[in-house]
């Protein structure tokens, strides 16, 4: 056979060209007319399926999911910020400095800032008259503790239960009044305190114009009567804000009672040793130890008394303010300013959530990009290798 010429070789090649079966061609035509519907039997990997999707179709649901996730997270964070946070922190050793307590706090309304300029400061500037008094007691609550006092029996031996918990309560009440009504309202405060066996620890009243005139009362109210007392105080005038908080001081109270019991037992033991002391030096040593232990017992007794007083009496701060309600501690009607504040907070939270989401998604996206690039390079290399 002779070597084919170029044109003949080309003609032969074209004659050898594979042709599709008519059935396959017809089926493919139908699929083309139908817009190539997806075939379930074709072995596409999930990655290939993902790749086959148009980016726009992927972006819309992905963006929607991202926005939804950010919105939900923002709402959750915002709700956490506004919900009361129950806390429990037991520290028995804190009894010695009286610092740590168990906390259980519920905020019912916004609490005025503690450092908010009081009416006293305002009156100094305005030259208003100020009347102050302190330590007015209506019930003699600060009675002296008997020498043989060894703590409330309900806390002894750590045998407390839910009904015997020592809970310290605090409340703050801001009343709004006209300047002319401040004196009358102050009198009603005293009456209400006396009616509920409370103590006025400190009080001050100011006369003057609106915004200057006002009064401030630091009260101790028997905890059992706190609810009634607050109701009575709230009825005096317009309530601008009311805040109540509770601190569980059971643990330090129980600890103080136990220590007091131990100290009493130690003193009894020392007294017994004193009776049996035979020498003068032995007797002096026991007496010195006894004196020290008695001082220790006095200290513990004072601590326990203080803790029990905190549980028995609730501290109540009552302020009578004059002037616009908006100037009080956030107790006014919700207005445009509050709305802007809230919107700003929500935007700040949303921005914070977005930053956190970006911090999480950024590295993931980078890893995904690198993985995709590596996969693409590997696929290209493999494709080249197939034909090599």
């Amino acid at each position, binding site marked *: 056979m002779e070597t084919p010429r170029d044109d003949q*070789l080309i003609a032969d090649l074209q004659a*050898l060209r594979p042709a*599709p079966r008519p059935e396959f061609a017809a089926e493919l*035509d139908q699929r083309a007319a139908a817009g190539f519907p997806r075939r379930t039997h074709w072995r596409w990997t999930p990655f290939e399926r993902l790749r086959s999707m148009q980016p726009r179709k992927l972006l819309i649901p992905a963006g929607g999911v991202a926005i939804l996730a950010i919105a939900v997270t923002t709402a959750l964070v915002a709700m956490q910020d506004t919900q009361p946070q129950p806390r429990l922190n037991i520290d028995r050793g804190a009894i010695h400095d009286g610092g740590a307590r168990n906390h259980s706090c519920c905020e019912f309304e916004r609490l005025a800032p503690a450092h908010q300029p009081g009416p006293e400061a305002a009156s100094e500037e305005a030259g208003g008259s100020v009347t102050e008094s302190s330590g007015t007691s209506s019930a003699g609550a600060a009675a002296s503790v008997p020498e043989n006092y060894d703590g409330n029996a309900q806390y002894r031996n750590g045998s407390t239960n839910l009904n015997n918990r020592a809970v310290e309560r605090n409340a703050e009440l801001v009343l709004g009044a006209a300047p002319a009504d401040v004196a009358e309202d102050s009198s009603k405060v005293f009456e209400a305190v006396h009616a509920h066996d409370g103590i006025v620890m400190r009080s001050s009243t100011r006369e003057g114009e609106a915004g200057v005139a006002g009064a401030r009362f630091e009260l101790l109210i028997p905890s059992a009567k706190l609810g009634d007392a607050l109701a009575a105080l709230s009825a005096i005038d317009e309530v601008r804000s009311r805040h109540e908080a509770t601190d569980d001081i059971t643990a330090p109270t129980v600890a103080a009672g136990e220590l007091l019991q131990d100290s009493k037992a130690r003193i009894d033991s020392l007294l017994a040793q004193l009776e049996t002391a035979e020498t003068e030096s032995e007797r002096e040593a026991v007496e010195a130890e006894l004196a020290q232990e008695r001082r220790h017992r006095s200290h513990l007794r004072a601590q326990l008394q203080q803790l029990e007083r905190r549980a028995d009496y609730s501290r109540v701060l009552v302020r009578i303010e004059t002037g616009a309600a908006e100037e009080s501690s956030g107790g006014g009607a919700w207005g445009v300013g509050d709305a802007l504040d809230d919107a700003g907070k929500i935007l700040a939270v949303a921005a914070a959530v977005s930053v956190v989401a970006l911090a999480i998604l950024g590295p993931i996206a980078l890893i995904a990009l690198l993985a995709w690039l590596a996969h693409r390079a590997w696929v290209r290399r493999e494709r080249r290798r197939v034909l090599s």
Partner: protein
Amino acid sequence: MEQTLIAEAKDAPRAGDLAFERLYRSSRDDVYAYVASLLRDAPAAEEVTAAAFERAYRKRNRFDPERGEPRAWLFGIARNAALDELRRRGRQAELAAEPADVESFGAPEDHERRLAVSAALERLDPGERELIALKFFAGLANAEIAQVLGLSESNAGTKLHRAMTKLREACDGNA
């Protein structure tokens, strides 16, 4: 071959759809011929051809005319699909060729010569066989071949020339 598309005229087709339809009509048999020459397995060639058109249809809006000819773009997709199929099956180029369709060898006087050309094709490297398939089975221009294979046009022409020379020599060897 007569090609018929049964299109339901629910909505007026968009320009991209019409262009793709034209591309499909003009390239269906060429794509199949090219894929079949790579895979040398008719059922697999049908699957891959259908998959290639499906992928191209899904990506039709991403085609950028400034980056090349539509046929080159389509054959690039078909090439990737065919190579992926070869990779997946692990058959690579060592795949035993299907027996040639004797009917395609034509008249008895051409039969022996075309049998020799077919045998010579089998002895070529897969890459060289692909070049010849792109040129003479798919009917691509050198510029389009270059785009499909990621080569320069002159390089593609040179490689094609070498492949043809080798094919001719192989035919001589058969003779």
